[in-house]
């Protein structure tokens, strides 16, 4: 499907109101899913749904942004834009998963962290930074998949993983096209041009080596067939998890570190940066 769409049409598909959200996937992948709440500090962030359930015979921790489909639900879910409490909840449960040896699956679908005064007052920058830093210390397999929008640091705070996948018609970007246009043109109406230059499609990210795999969506897009999209996601996640289950935890963390330490090495940077592998003492 990606072949026939313009970049902007892809952005609109990634944001489609009928696109399957975290809840649509988790109900199909993990039928006995039990939602867990709260960061144990001050609040529960409804923009991030997290919980445990049985996935292919083992207990796993699933978490992801929930956008909400009705206006009421969107307001409650804040369109999937997390506050600091969401990142703190994610980390609390990641540490819990490490305690019990549960693998972790993060399904990312957010325009970004919430750009509001309350988020700033409660330390959104440090919450995201702390999450990004701590994911490197969680000694169980971590998988991330961008299922819709992966916007900026708010998305990366849930996507420091051993393998990162993308649904075919999802996008992953340093900033939303609107925000990027506002920064480089000082005019967010230039969003289409920004989107075209940013290289945000699943195909772009696979070529750059930022994601390991693109999951094909049903003809017409994931919103036309939730069951087929969920089956494709499930199969790709299980396939990615298998080799990670056999890794020694220390080797797993070393490899996760190197994944990001040398993530820019594919895009022709190698000749300018020197050797990319083994520099941290493998």
């Amino acid at each position, binding site marked *: 499907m990606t072949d026939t769409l313009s970049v902007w049409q892809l952005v609109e598909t990634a944001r489609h109101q009928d696109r399957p959200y975290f809840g649509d996937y988790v109900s199909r992948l993990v039928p006995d899913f039990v939602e867990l709440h709260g960061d144990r500090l001050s609040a529960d962030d409804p923009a991030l749904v997290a919980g445990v359930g049985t996935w292919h015979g083992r207990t796993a921790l699933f978490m992801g942004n929930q956008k909400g489909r009705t206006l009421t639900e969107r307001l409650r879910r804040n369109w999937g834009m997390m506050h600091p409490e969401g990142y703190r909840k994610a980390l609390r449960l990641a540490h819990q998963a490490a305690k019990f040896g549960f693998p972790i699956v993060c399904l990312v679908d957010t325009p970004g*962290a919430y750009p509001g005064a309350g988020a700033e007052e409660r330390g959104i920058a440090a919450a995201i930074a702390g999450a990004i830093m701590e994911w490197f210390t969680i000694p169980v397999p971590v998988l991330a998949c961008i299922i819709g929008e992966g916007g900026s640091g708010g998305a990366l705070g849930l996507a420091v993983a051993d393998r990162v996948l993308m649904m075919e018609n999802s996008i992953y970007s340093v900033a939303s096209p609107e925000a990027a246009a506002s920064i480089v043109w000082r005019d967010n109406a230039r969003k289409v041009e920004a989107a075209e230059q940013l290289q945000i499609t699943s195909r772009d990210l696979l070529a750059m080596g930022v994601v390991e795999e693109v999951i094909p969506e049903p003809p017409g897009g994931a919103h036309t067939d939730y069951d087929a999209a969920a089956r494709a996601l499930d199969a790709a996640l299980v396939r990615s998890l298998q080799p990670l289950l056999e890794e020694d935890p220390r080797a797993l963390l070393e490899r996760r570190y190197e994944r990001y330490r040398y993530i820019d090495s594919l895009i022709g940077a190698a000749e300018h940066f020197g050797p990319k592998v083994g520099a941290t003492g493998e």
Partner: protein
Amino acid sequence: MGADAWIALLADPGSWQERWSDIRPHDLLDWKRPKAYEDVIDAAREDGLNEAVRTGTATIGDRPAWLAVFDFRFVGGTLSIVAGERLARGLEAAAASGVPYLLVTASGGARMQEGVLALMQLAKVNGAVGRLHASRTPFFSILTDPTFGGVSASLALMADLNIAEPGAAIGFTGARVIKQATYADLPKGFQSAEFQLAHGQVDMVVPRTELRRRLIHLLELYR
């Protein structure tokens, strides 16, 4: 204040040894509009600037330190692949040697013209910050005006000691964007260093004139 002036202010005279100044940015995404990224880089380099982060070793009050300084004049001090690479190499070297790591920030965030690869620098750098902490090496962050976006959401606030300059604007999303997105009236002093002190994000607010003396004292305490 540019990186050169910060280095002159903090380092003992003649002690600065710059590292990895030869690694250079490249237009990896073929970015042409509204200005070609290559032209943006060339113009900055013609002004005598060498990327948004410069790093190296120095002594401060005769104590060795790693120093990494953002330069806002180079594409708004934006975090790029080169900036991330210099930061990560310095953090790894500091972790290996136990030499304290001093950071001076001034940045609008991640560099748009390097796309998602600029975003990935947040993870590259914070992985290295985690290892610096695990090695029990001191890390002090000096937050100057402005410190936002991908820099505040990566290493800037992850230090053992966060030291802000008086009046410096520090936050994740800039005030203009918050107003556009939420129609909120923001209080006077929103996101200032003093606001961040009151909200628990920084340890102290120190004027530039007292900074070197304070750092020498702190390096003594955390030796």
